[in-house]
């Protein structure tokens, strides 16, 4: 999936239905124009650590439970890399297990959001994340 504009949102999510809902919610608020969806951790690492990447995304939305390379590992790799650790990473997951939250923050996550089951709340949460990281937040150059 190649796009012309620089990627603003990098969505790393293995569940296509969940990804569909997230994209739907972002689209509703016109925030999904420069979005790239990668389907697991391996794909994400391949993308992030390739030469193909010219500009850094404004935010990475990262699911935790994924096959092969999970979200925690992706987060660890990003945050331990000198050039990539400045990319804001938002964990977007179903789990509110204490150990996930703690480990994510220990690794330097920028935000941890639990996806609500209720769709209204879900749409609201996704919209707020989009507004905050794309419009309000000043990303590093």
């Amino acid at each position: 999936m190649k796009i012309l504009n620089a990627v603003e949102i990098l969505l790393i999510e293995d569940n296509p239905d969940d990804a569909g809902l997230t994209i739907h919610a972002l689209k509703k608020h016109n925030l999904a124009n420069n979005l790239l969806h990668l389907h697991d951790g391996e794909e994400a690492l391949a993308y992030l650590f390739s030469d193909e990447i010219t500009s850094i995304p404004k935010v990475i939305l990262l699911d935790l439970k994924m096959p092969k390379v999970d979200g925690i590992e992706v987060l660890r790799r990003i945050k331990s890399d000198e050039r990539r650790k400045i990319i804001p990473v938002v964990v977007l997951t179903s789990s509110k297990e204490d150990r996930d939250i703690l480990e994510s923050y220990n690794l330097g996550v920028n935000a941890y959001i639990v996806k609500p089951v209720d769709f209204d709340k879900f749409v609201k949460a996704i919209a707020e994340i989009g507004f905050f990281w794309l419009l309000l937040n000043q990303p590093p150059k």
Partner: protein
Amino acid sequence: MNKPILIGFFLALVFGSVIYHYLNNRKNYSREWRYSFAGNHSLHRKASTTGLAAALRFRADFGHQRFFHPDMKMNAGLNKKGTPGLLQDNDPTGKDVNTPSTTVKKFDSGYIAFWVGITLALISLSLFLLFQIRKRQAVTEQFNVARADLITLFNNAPCGLHSIDEKGFIVNINNTLLGWLGYEKVEIVGKLKFTDLVGKDEQNGAEQSLAISQVSASDKVRLNLIKKSGETIPVILSVVRTDGLSKAPEKRLFSTVDNSECRDSLERIKHLDHELEAFSYSISHDLRAPLRSIDGYSRILQEDYAVKLDVEGKRVLTVIMNNAKRMGKLIDDLLEFGRLGRKTLQRSHLSMTGMVNSIVQELVALEPTRKIEVKVGQLHRAFVDVDMIRQVWFHLLQNAIKFTGKTDLAAIEIRSYQTGEGETCYEVKDNGVGFDMQYAPKLFGVFQRLHKMQDFSGTGVGLAIVKRIISRHGGRVWAEGILNQGVTFYFTIPIEDENT
């Protein structure tokens, strides 16, 4: 019959026959005997019947005869009084002590008395020895029984027992411990140090804790011992006795308790706990995602394809979405319930009054159309896990507000008092729908509900959470209700010493 008794019997026979002989002959010569004595020694005039006295008498008399021979007697008399021969001639009794016939008679009776005395003395001695031997034998027998008992106990004790010398070598070891370790006694005693049986990584620690000579019996060391087969067995080791009695090399006796059952149980619990955690982690991640899709895509259908759906179609979609949300809530509550069992309590001092007031405000604000009167008394402070107790109050107060929903004026009262049994009791009383007391045992179960869904919403986990939290604080929780009149919930929290 044993030997000493036979010997005793024999000696008694000898003794008996001598006495008999003596008594038989006494009458015949006693007169002369007494008479002859009287001439020489008035002291011995009265012959006693005891053998020893007779023996003494005889000796004195006989001695007199020997040492005071007429010639010598004269010398003695001369030496004493300076009048030679006078003593002999002027004897006041006028008896001739040296008359041969009298001497023979006297000798005979004295002779018998002597042997009677000797015999009696020997018999007395034998009896005494016999008695001592018997006593000794009884003691030895008791000692042997006790010793056998001790050895049996030592070897078959439910705990391992072993003693070591000052160098740490094992000098004795019981069968129990040998059985655990799979060694023969000869392979160990005097050949191995106890520390040789301890796992390599624990050897230093073991040596240190065992080297201290002042180890007290209360000191317990947890160790892993290595069996002959190479397997390990966890034990709790303690000192039973430190021998400081003699100058003999220091020796210490230890007991070991097999701890493997405890270790296995602990490992099983850890394993189960781990499994449970993995289970709830998986539920947390995997069970919610499909629900989100059900709700989300139903919603998209409802919003974006509304024109293609009739009223019934939209109603069906709403049913699907409501159920997805409800299931989401159930999963959340259940996960929360599971988490409570594993979470460690973090206690601090809490103003219950402050907490209750803030929760009441929060909940009442959600019901702007209702008339709710809440009386919060001055509540006792508590030393509790604040987050958990907040959940307790939240569920109880939420229930009180929920179940008074059909009364015109909801009256809720919260108070507390000390029971006098080291605990504080907190009460939440309402005038709501109440419940039939016959269902009271179901009240605090997971997913137990006493009301129809259309009357009152809820997952049925709230009170189960309340119960678990209160139990974890060491308190009790119960309820008293009357159908359509209200319910009172009670829970207790032990009054904790602030320093503990």
